[in-house]
C-alpha cells in the first residue's frame, strides 16, 4: 500500500495565489479608483494607504470615501462599516469548521485577511475531496496575494491622482455610483430582493435630509425588514 501524498505547504500557498488570479485582476480597478478618489474625498494619501493596509475591505473603504466627501461624522462611518461588513461574519461562520482545529496564531491573520474573494476561492478548496492537512496554507496564499495586490493598486491610484490636477472636477465620483449600481442590479433577481432595494431607496430619499446620515441606516433597516418579511410570506 502506497502512502497518500498530500500537496506540500509551498504548493498549497502557490495554488491559493494562482486560483485568486482572476480576483486579483478584478480588484485592480477598484484599488485604482479608491486611490484616485481619496484626495478629492478629503482623505490624505497616508490615510488611504493606512486604510488599505489596516481595514482591507474594499466596499467599506469606498463607502467611507463617499461618506467623508458628504461630510458625515465618524460614528456614522463606523456604523456603516459595521453593517456593510456584517456579511464577513457569515463567511467566517461558514469557514469555522475548517479552521476550528487551528491555533489562534493562525486564526487571527486568516480572519483579518478574509474577503469576499478569498472566501469564494477557499471555500472551493475546502470542498475538494482530498484530505490534505495543509489547506490553510492555500487559504494563506489567497490572502497574501489579495493583500499585496490591494496595496499595490491603491498606491498606483494615489500616484495617478497626484499626477492629474483638478481631478475632483472631472466627475470621477461617478465611478463609485457605477460600481455600486453594477453590484446591486444583478442581485435583484427575485421579488423580496427587488422589494428590499426599492424600499431602501424610497426611505433613503425620504430621509436624506436627516442629520448624521441617519437616513442611510433607516433605509438599510427598512430594506432588510421588507426582504425578510416578503420571503416569509412567499
Amino acid at each position: 500500500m502506497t502512502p497518500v501524498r498530500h500537496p506540500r505547504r509551498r504548493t498549497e500557498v502557490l495554488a491559493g495565489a494562482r486560483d485568486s488570479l482572476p480576483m486579483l485582476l478584478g480588484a485592480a480597478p477598484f484599488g485604482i479608483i479608491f486611490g484616485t478618489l481619496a484626495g478629492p474625498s478629503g482623505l490624505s494619501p497616508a490615510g488611504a494607504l493606512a486604510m488599505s493596509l489596516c481595514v482591507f475591505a474594499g466596499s467599506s473603504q469606498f463607502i467611507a470615501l463617499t461618506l467623508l466627501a458628504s461630510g458625515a461624522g465618524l460614528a456614522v462611518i463606523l456604523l456603516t462599516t459595521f453593517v456593510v461588513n456584517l456579511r464577513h461574519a457569515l463567511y467566517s461562520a461558514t469557514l469555522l469548521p475548517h479552521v476550528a482545529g487551528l491555533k489562534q496564531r493562525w486564526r487571527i491573520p486568516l480572519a483579518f485577511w478574509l474577503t469576499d474573494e478569498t472566501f469564494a476561492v477557499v471555500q472551493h478548496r475546502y470542498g475538494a475531496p482530498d484530505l490534505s492537512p495543509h489547506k490553510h496554507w492555500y487559504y494563506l496564499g489567497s490572502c497574501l496575494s489579495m493583500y499585496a495586490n490591494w496595496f499595490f493598486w491603491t498606491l498606483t491610484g494615489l500616484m495617478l491622482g497626484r499626477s492629474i490636477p483638478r481631478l475632483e472636477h472631472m466627475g470621477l465620483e461617478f465611478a463609485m455610483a457605477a460600481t455600486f449600481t453594477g453590484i446591486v442590479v444583478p442581485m435583484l433577481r427575485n421579488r423580496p430582493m427587488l422589494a428590499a432595494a426599492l424600499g431602501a431607496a424610497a426611505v433613503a430619499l425620504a430621509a436624506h435630509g436627516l442629520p448624521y446620515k441617519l437616513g442611510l441606516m433607516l433605509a438599510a433597516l427598512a430594506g432588510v425588514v421588507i426582504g425578510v418579511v416578503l420571503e416569509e410570506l412567499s
Partner: protein
Amino acid sequence: MTGREVALVAGMTAVTFLVRYGFFALGERVAFPPLARRALRYVPAAVLTAIVVPMVLLPDGAHWQLGWHNAWLLGALATGLIAWRFNHLLASIAGGMTVFFLCRWMIG
C-alpha cells in the same frame, strides 16, 4: 494623517476585524440563528441602493434632478441595464462611465 483620520482608520480596522474574527475566536460554541442568516443576505442590496439612489437623483445633495440633463441618472441607468443584461461588473462600470462622460460633454 490628522488625528481624525487616525481615529477613522483605527475605528474601521477594529470594527472590520471584530466582525471577521468573531466566529473564529469563539470556535464552535456559537450557532448562527437562521433569521440572522436570512436577514444578512439583504444587507448588501439594501445598503448599496440606499447610497446610490440619492447620489443619482440628487447629484448636488439637495435638489431633485429627474430630467435628461442629469448625467448621473443616465450613467446609472446605462450601468444598470448592462449589469442586468450581461451580469458583468467591469463592463457595466465602463459602459456607465462612457454614457456619463458623453452626457456631461454634450450638456457642456
